[in-house]
C-alpha cells in the first residue's frame, strides 16, 4: 500500500470519484469534516472493508455517498438505529455515523440518547451548522439564541441543545467538540473516538454559508471561521476562569461554546456486556444440566 502524503492522494484513496461533483456549496464545512475523517482513518490504517458508514438525511448525511466504502444512506433521523443493526450483525465492523444537527439532535434525538445510554460501540460524527441546510434554512435545535432562520425570522428564542453535555450525562465513552477551523485537534479526536470501544460522539461546528451564514451576516466564510474563534473557548480555559477568574472574565466567557474533549472514559460497551451475559447464562445452563444428570 502506498503511503498517503498529500490531500490529493488521500482523496484518491478514499473518495468515490464517480459521485463528483458533490452537492456542497462553496464554503460548506462538510467536506472539511470528511477530510479530517480520512486523515484519521489513514493514520489508524483501518481496513476499509471492515468499516461501514451510516447516515440519515441532510447535506451532512450525503457524506457516505462520497466515500469509497460500504454505506447506508437511511431516513431522516434514524441513522443510529440502522447503525446499531450493522454493529449487532457483526461486532467486528467499525461503524461510523455521519449526521446533522437536525438529523441527530432534532428528529432523531431519541435514537441518539438511547444509543449513548446503552453505550453502543459506534462513532457518531454530528456536523452542527446550526440549521437545516438541505431544506433551505429552518432553525435547528442547536442554533444559538438570536440566530436568524426561515422559521425564526426575528431571531431564535429557543434554548439550544448542548449535544456534548447530553452525551456526557448519558455516559458516552468519548465526547468531543471542535470547530472545523481547528486543523489538528479534530483529527486527533476522531482517531480517539474511532479507537474507543463503546459510544463516541464527535461534534463539529461547520459553516453552512448558504442557509445559515447569509442570514446571520456570516456569508463571508472568513467571517464565519472568525466567529468560531470569537465564540468558543477551550473547556480547560473555561473551567479555570469559572474557578479563579474575575467577575468580568466570567461574564465574558459564560455564553461561549466550550470546545475540546468533554469525556474520555472506558465503561464496557453494550456488546461486550451482552457477550458476558451470554457466557454467564451458558455456564449456568450447563451447571443445571450437570445437576440433572
Amino acid at each position, binding site marked *: 500500500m502506498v503511503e498517503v502524503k498529500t490531500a490529493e492522494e488521500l482523496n484518491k484513496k478514499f473518495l468515490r470519484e464517480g459521485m463528483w461533483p458533490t452537492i456542497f456549496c462553496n464554503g460548506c464545512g462538510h467536506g472539511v469534516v470528511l477530510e479530517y475523517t480520512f486523515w484519521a482513518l489513514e493514520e489508524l490504517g483501518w481496513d476499509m472493508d471492515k468499516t461501514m458508514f451510516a447516515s440519515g438525511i441532510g447535506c451532512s448525511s450525503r457524506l457516505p455517498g462520497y466515500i469509497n466504502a460500504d454505506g447506508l444512506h437511511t431516513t431522516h433521523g434514524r441513522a443510529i438505529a440502522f447503525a446499531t443493526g450493522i454493529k449487532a450483525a457483526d461486532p467486528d465492523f467499525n461503524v461510523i455515523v455521519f449526521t446533522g444537527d437536525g438529523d441527530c439532535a*432534532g428528529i432523531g434525538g431519541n435514537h441518539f440518547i438511547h444509543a449513548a445510554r446503552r453505550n453502543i460501540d459506534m462513532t457518531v460524527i454530528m456536523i452542527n451548522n446550526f440549521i437545516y441546510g438541505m431544506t433551505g434554512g429552518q432553525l435547528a435545535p442547536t442554533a444559538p439564541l438570536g440566530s436568524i432562520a426561515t*422559521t425564526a425570522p426575528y431571531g431564535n428564542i429557543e434554548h439550544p441543545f448542548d449535544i456534548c453535555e447530553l452525551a456526557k450525562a448519558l455516559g458516552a465513552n468519548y465526547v468531543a467538540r471542535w470547530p472545523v477551523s481547528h486543523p489538528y485537534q479534530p483529527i486527533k479526536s476522531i482517531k480517539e473516538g474511532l479507537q474507543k470501544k463503546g459510544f463516541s460522539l464527535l461534534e463539529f461546528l461547520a459553516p453552512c454559508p448558504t442557509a445559515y451564514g447569509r442570514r446571520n451576516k456570516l456569508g463571508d466564510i472568513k467571517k464565519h471561521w472568525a466567529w468560531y474563534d470569537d465564540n468558543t473557548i477551550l473547556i480547560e480555559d473555561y473551567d479555570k476562569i469559572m474557578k479563579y477568574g474575575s467577575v468580568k472574565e466570567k461574564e465574558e466567557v459564560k455564553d461561549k461554546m466550550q470546545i475540546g474533549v468533554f469525556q474520555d472514559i472506558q465503561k464496557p460497551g453494550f456488546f461486550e456486556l451482552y457477550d458476558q451475559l451470554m457466557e454467564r447464562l451458558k455456564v449456568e445452563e450447563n451447571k443445571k444440566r450437570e445437576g440433572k444428570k
Partner: protein
Amino acid sequence: MNQVMIDTGNYIAAKAAVMCKPDVVAAYPITPQTTLVEGIANYQGKGEFKGEYICVESEHSAMAACIGASATGVRTFTGTSSHGLLLMHEMLHWAALARLPVVMCNINRVVGPGWNIWTDENDSISQRDTGWIQFYCSSNQEIFDTIIQAFKIGEHQKVSLPVMISYNAFILSHTSMPVYVPDQKEIDAFLPKRKPLWYLDPNNPITFGNIILPAEYEKVRFDMQKSQYYCKKLIPEISKEWKEKFGRFHGDLLEYYKCENVEYILLSMGAIGAESKVAIDNLRKQGLKIGLARVRTFRPFPQEEILKLSKNADLIIIDRNISPGMEGAVFSEIKASLYGKSDAKVYGYIAGLGGKDVTFGDIEKMCKKAIDGKTKHLEWYGLEGV
C-alpha cells in the same frame, strides 16, 4: 370580487389554507412541501394568518399537534410529503379513528431508498386504509378550490373525517399558474365555523382514545365506513354549491371529459389527469371514440360511477403508483368495482414512477396500443411490451 393570483401550487395552497382561517397549523419541512408551510408563515408575518403556527421536530409531532388541537374543536391544517407522510402513518390512523377533520396537503413525492425528490403517488396510496378522504388535484386552481371544500366536507357532522389533498411534486407544487381567488367574505359565507359534535370541553369532560371492547370497536369502524360512503353524496353536493357560488367545477368524485359517445374511457389521476385531456383531444381528432374520467377521490372510491361508465366502454387505466406483487392501485380498485357486474375489458399501465415524465404523447401511445388490442392486461409503460 375575484382576484387573480399567479403562483405555484404550494403558495396557492398556502393562500387557500389561510383563507379557511385555521386556528392551528403545525408543520415540519420536507422538499417539496417546504414552500407551502413557509407561505403560511409569511401570511402570519403579514398578519393575514391569525392562528397559531407551530414548528415541530418531526412530522409525527406535526400530526400529533394537529390532532391535539382538533380535539379541542378548532380547525387545523398541515402539509407534508413522501417520508414525512410515512412517518405520520400512526397518527393518520389516529386522526381518522378519533374522527378529527384535520385537513392536510400531501405533495406526492417518491419514497426511498433510492433518494428521489420527484413525483409519484406511492406515498399517499400507501395511506389508503387509514380512513382519510383522499383527493388528487390536476391544477393549481383545483388545489385552491379543493382545500376550501375539504374543510367543509371533513367537518360536516355526518362525516367528521380528516381530508388529504394530494398534488404532484414540482409539476404542480413548484409551477406557477393563474388562479382565481374569491373574496374572504365569500369564503366565510361558504365555509362556516367548525361545529363539532364532541370536543374537549372542561364543562363537559370526555376522553378520546379510551379502551374499547371488540363489539364496540367494530361499530366504530362500521360508522367510519358509513361516513366515507356518505361523502359520495356530499362531495357532489359541495362541488355543485361551489360551482353555483364561484362558477368553477372540477368534477365530483370523477371529472368527465368528452365522455359522450365513447367506446373507451381513460382513467388517470393527478397531473397525468390534466395531461390526459390533451391526449384525448388528439385521439378524438384521429377519430377514436375515447373520453377521460379523471379520478379525483381515491377515498371514497367512485365505484358506482365507474361501473356506469363501463357499461358502454372498455377502460384504460394509468397508475403512477404500484402495489408490488399486485398492480396499480386505481387499476385494482376499478376491477373490484366492476366484478360480476360488467363485461368491459380493462387495461392497466404503470407509468411515471420516480418522477419520469408522462407526456400527452406517451398517453396517446398507451391508449392506442390498448385500443389495438395489443396491451397485456397490465403493462409497465416503457419497460415492457415496447
